[in-house]
């Protein structure tokens, strides 16, 4: 049957979001998770980090209380600024303090294997 027109935010960790990633492209819908490193009230720009990777988030449409050091998850579209820096224009966001990021990343791997199995099973 036909699918929904709203794009799902693909599950990616910040560490996977490099220039070689298929998700690292203009307009890609992503779900990202990271610790808030900085937040500028005037511009509503947040920066989240995971390991050594950081990502700017445009939170203009969010009604969240941002606390540096807390962990947040956002769904939105990836855009590239004139400087070529990536920024996620967030549609929704939430505080996920207490999330087990290691378990999250391991589960993502299992989920991807399962999804590939199921999709391959349909086509063979």
């Amino acid at each position: 049957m036909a699918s929904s027109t709203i794009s799902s935010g693909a599950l990616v960790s910040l560490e996977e979001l490099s220039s070689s990633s298929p998700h690292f492209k203009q307009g890609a819908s992503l779900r990202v998770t990271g610790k808030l490193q900085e937040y500028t009230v005037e511009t509503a720009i947040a920066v989240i980090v995971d390991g050594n990777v950081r990502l700017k988030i445009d939170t203009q449409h969010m009604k969240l209380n941002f606390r540096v050091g807390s962990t947040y998850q956002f769904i939105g579209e990836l855009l590239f600024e004139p400087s070529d820096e990536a920024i996620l224009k967030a549609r929704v966001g939430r505080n996920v303090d207490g999330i087990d990021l290691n378990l999250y990343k391991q589960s993502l791997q299992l989920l991807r294997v399962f999804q590939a199995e199921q999709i391959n099973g349909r086509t063979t």
Partner: protein
Amino acid sequence: MDSLYHTHVKLLAFDFITLTPNPSDPLSFSRKGLSISRAETLGIVTCREHKPNKFLKFTVDDGTGCIPCILWLNQLSSQYFSRRNPSDVRLIANAAAKFASEVQLGVVARVRGRITAYRGAVQITVSDVVVERDPNIDILHWLDCVKLARKCYDVVPCYKPK
């Protein structure tokens, strides 16, 4: 009838959206030959359209896709409920209004309901909603869905009418 017919089957969105209507039973849908009629999903609410006293349409994004959901809010005016006990109908209407107030953009919602089709797409006609607070709850849901598919939904024998 299949043993999972009345069960709220936990499906990931990429799986849910491939369900196909059963030509022989307008209330059921087929997943790899298995007839099911109810589903459970869990994910972030990413879209919300509210018509007071009519309906709330919303979308649940579980990271593998989006599932459209409809929560009816017209119980007090719909002919469909006119033959039922008015106090029961009020209870149903109050519960639906409470669910509608809880389903806000960005929350993680666990949604159960009947699988229905609208304009060629499958959706959930909502019977209940729980807003989840645990930040690890979607991990548990993914793993539940994977385990149930592998150990149960993919191996349950399907009833084939002779």
